[in-house]
């Protein structure tokens, strides 16, 4: 195959197939001062893609707060880093792998996990935990069951093998994701606060290495493909296969290399492999790179420079070493049986120059590739008013309670997380099944708290408030476990940014998230944007997913999301912290009754939210508190039921007089939590709640009984065996999967 000439690229508009618009191509010609050849046009195409350049979202992302005393590294590096005290820090980031997972769910999810893993150890951090945030269509469809089963298997397949526990995450099911599932993976690592390594190619003359796996023809065009329209229509052989075994060796080798002190800069090869890693490393250093492509270890014969530069072969890194210390890398990588090749030099001329067979095959200004990539202020539609609807009370309390608990978004996710090794490394203090996961810092009485959240129903109904809630929910989970929230990462999964209404969602959601981050003192330190999530022209509901990180000093202070069986059986009082609310707007109840999201997003007040978080941390230190669980999807009814199911105790609940029964049970108003407290702790609790100005109301009690009763002013509202609630909650997902086959790829 002959590559098209520069003139052909121009005249036959070949650049369009490389992802450049006519205007963008003109800009390339202008920046270059000549016509780009095929390699150059391909490189511009991927680097200026939505995926690599954030061209549609960049102007909006600037509104996120990104600094604070706890922030050691904000956005712009491979991962963000925050200080957790005592000389230690945490690196973390979340990334999407939506489109690859829609095409080949096992490998798509697995390579997503592998990619985010490399982002973390690149920072010099030892990866200690994964979380995964997943979205699928309803399980009544064979293709969805296949996608769901395979994505979960793929996440486990990679994470379990590399020996990093998957300790949390979420799965939600909604018709909006039928044609476009979401797979977001987060990785968390620990490092000394003064040990951050960056992806910078500095020091003129320093050697540049490719390490890890050989380069093959995998996933060429993957990056442009990741932001292109419909996954169904795309070229289908671009599947990349992950090799977790190699990934594990690469991680160990890189951490050893970093510990040797010989590393100047290091960056993983994610989307657009060698192209984006080299250009970004040079750009951060404000310098240039020269690479001799003949030296890149390849897996297949006859690979062209174009293919080498655009290959997305997994498990590779680009490393700049201190000159004279090359032997360190050779010794380490050879011991692990990994490829290591010296492929070029750091220069100071600000250009990315590629040499092949003794000829310069590409020569471009780094600034044009990265810093001066186009940025779009895409048109934004006018804000729309949330619709006003009356949500009919057509589903009675008892049926609604069962329906909510058996909705796969709320129901028990054990089917998912028992396929993950949640305990490897033997530091998992609280794993899946709790509001936040806690992973111990080895050798210290300190744990990192983490959680992910993001409810797209709220964002669809009211993007700004939905954005606030996404952050508030994730962060609240940390506080509920007794941890101090520190910062967040995020993945913004949205539809087609060329539609003004989608840009409105994106812009407003970012505003809401930014407001919540400020109020909760959790700056954004890393993140990822995934646009063009649409199928057959229909966009997904806007889905910002937030990954929050906190710290708890003293693991004895942690709060479980349910009390132990023994403590519950001895009798505990249940208290509601936060606002009493009986609105059904934006609730799962509303969606169940109306068949779609209805009303406005639920209530949230960021100042109240903050006070609740502070109160929860204070409560966690007291002896009387036996458990805390925040109120989210499914409202107080779901929160209380989950606590009862977990601890195996029934109990009694009282609805305050004057409140709508359904509203009070199923409202999803934010800023609330349920706590289980020893009866003698009531006074202390009241004092603390008053001190933090958080409303407090006695909800009822847990008792050693198989019965659950809800009353209002003495009248029975619902009386139900605990076993009925448990069955609804625990069997929903396994039953939905059993209903059909999950083994079919079609």
């Amino acid at each position, binding site marked *: 195959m002959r590559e098209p000439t520069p003139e052909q690229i121009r005249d036959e508009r070949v650049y369009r197939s490389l992802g450049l618009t006519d205007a963008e191509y003109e800009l390339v010609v202008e920046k270059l001062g000549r016509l780009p050849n095929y390699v150059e046009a391909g490189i511009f195409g991927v680097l200026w893609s939505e995926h690599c350049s954030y061209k549609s979202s960049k102007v909006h992302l600037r509104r996120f707060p990104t600094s604070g005393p706890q922030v050691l590294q904000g956005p712009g590096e491979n991962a963000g880093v925050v200080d957790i005290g005592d000389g230690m820090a945490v690196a973390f980031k979340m990334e999407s792998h939506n489109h690859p997972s829609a095409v080949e769910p096992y490998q798509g999810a697995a390579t997503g996990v592998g990619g985010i893993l490399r982002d973390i150890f690149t920072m010099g951090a030892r990866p200690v935990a994964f979380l995964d945030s997943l979205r699928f269509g309803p399980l009544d469809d064979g293709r969805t069951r296949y996608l769901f089963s395979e994505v979960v298997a793929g996440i486990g397949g990679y994470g379990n093998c590399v020996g990093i526990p998957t300790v949390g995450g979420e799965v939600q099911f909604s018709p909006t994701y039928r044609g476009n599932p979401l797979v977001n993976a987060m990785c968390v690592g620990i490092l000394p606060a003064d040990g951050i390594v960056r992806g910078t190619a500095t020091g003129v003359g320093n050697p540049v290495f490719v390490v890890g796996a050989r380069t093959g023809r995998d996933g060429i065009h993957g990056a442009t493909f990741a932001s292109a329209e419909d996954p169904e229509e795309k070229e289908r*052989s671009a*599947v990349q296969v992950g090799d977790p075994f190699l990934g594990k060796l690469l991680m160990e080798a890189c951490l050893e290399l970093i510990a040797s002190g010989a590393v100047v800069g290091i960056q993983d090869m994610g989307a657009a492999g060698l192209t984006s890693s080299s250009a970004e490393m040079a750009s951060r250093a404000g310098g240039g790179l020269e690479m001799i492509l003949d030296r890149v270890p390849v897996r297949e014969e006859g690979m062209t420079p174009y293919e080498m530069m655009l290959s997305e072969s997994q498990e590779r890194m680009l490393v700049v070493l201190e000159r004279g210390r090359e032997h360190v890398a050779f010794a380490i990588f050879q011991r692990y*049986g990994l490829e290591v090749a010296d492929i070029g030099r750091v220069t100071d001329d600000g250009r990315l120059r590629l040499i092949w067979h003794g000829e310069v095959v590409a020569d471009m200004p780094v600034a044009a590739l990265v810093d001066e990539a186009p940025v779009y202020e895409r048109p934004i539609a006018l804000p729309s008013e949330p619709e006003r609807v009356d949500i009919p009370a057509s589903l009675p309390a008892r049926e609604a309670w069962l329906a909510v608990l058996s909705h796969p978004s709320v129901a028990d996710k054990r089917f998912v997380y028992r396929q993950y090794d949640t305990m490897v490394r033997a530091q998992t203090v609280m794993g899946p099944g709790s509001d936040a996961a806690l992973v111990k810092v080895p050798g210290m009485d300190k744990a990192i708290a983490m959680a992910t959240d993001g409810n797209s129903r709220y964002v669809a109904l009211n993007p700004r408030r939905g954005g606030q809630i996404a952050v508030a929910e994730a962060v609240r989970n940390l506080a509920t476990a007794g941890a101090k929230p520190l910062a967040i990462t995020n993945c913004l999964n949205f539809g087609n940014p060329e539609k003004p209404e989608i840009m409105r969602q994106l812009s407003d959601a970012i505003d809401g998230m930014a407001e919540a981050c400020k109020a909760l003192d959790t700056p954004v330190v890393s993140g990822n944007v995934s646009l063009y999530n649409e199928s057959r022209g229909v966009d997904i509901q806007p889905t910002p997913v937030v990954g929050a990180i906190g710290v708890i000093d003293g693991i004895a202070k942690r709060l479980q999301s349910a009390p132990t069986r023994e403590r519950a059986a001895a009798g505990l009082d249940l208290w509601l912290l936060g606002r009493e609310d009986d609105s059904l707007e934006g609730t799962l109840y509303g969606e169940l009754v109306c068949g779609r999201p209805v009303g406005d997003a639920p209530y949230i007040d960021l100042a109240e939210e903050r006070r609740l978080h502070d109160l929860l941390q204070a409560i966690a230190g007291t002896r009387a508190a036996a458990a805390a669980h925040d109120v989210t999807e499914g409202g107080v009814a779901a929160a209380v039921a989950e606590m009862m199911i977990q601890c195996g105790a029934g109990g009694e609940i009282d609805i305050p007089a004057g409140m709508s029964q359904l509203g009070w049970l199923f409202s999803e108003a934010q800023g609330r939590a349920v706590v289980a407290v020893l009866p003698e702790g009531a006074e202390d609790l009241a004092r603390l709640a008053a001190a933090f100005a958080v409303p407090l109301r006695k909800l009822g009690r847990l008792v050693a009984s198989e019965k659950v009763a809800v009353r209002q002013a003495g009248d029975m509202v619902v009386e139900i065996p605990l076993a009925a609630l448990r069955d609804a909650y625990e069997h929903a997902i396994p039953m939905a999967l059993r209903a059909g086959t999950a083994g*079919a*790829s079609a």
Partner: protein
Amino acid sequence: MKTFDVEVRVWLKPSVFDPQGHAVEQALHTLGFDGAQNVRIGKYMHLTVTGETEAEARKSVEQMCERVLSNPVMETYAYELKETVV
């Protein structure tokens, strides 16, 4: 109705990296089997199918291969079919 014995082989398309084959090849070299090269590992399946005619059976096997036994996004398959001798 006739019964047929079917053997299906499924393997990764040539451009797709085969980590398993790669690891096994390395291991074979370490064990002194230096001549072993290009190791690729796929699936081998045996099953019986029924059909009025061989053509009908073949059609159904092909459908199975495409919909269940392989993932056409990354795999290729081949099969052999023989009438079962009872």
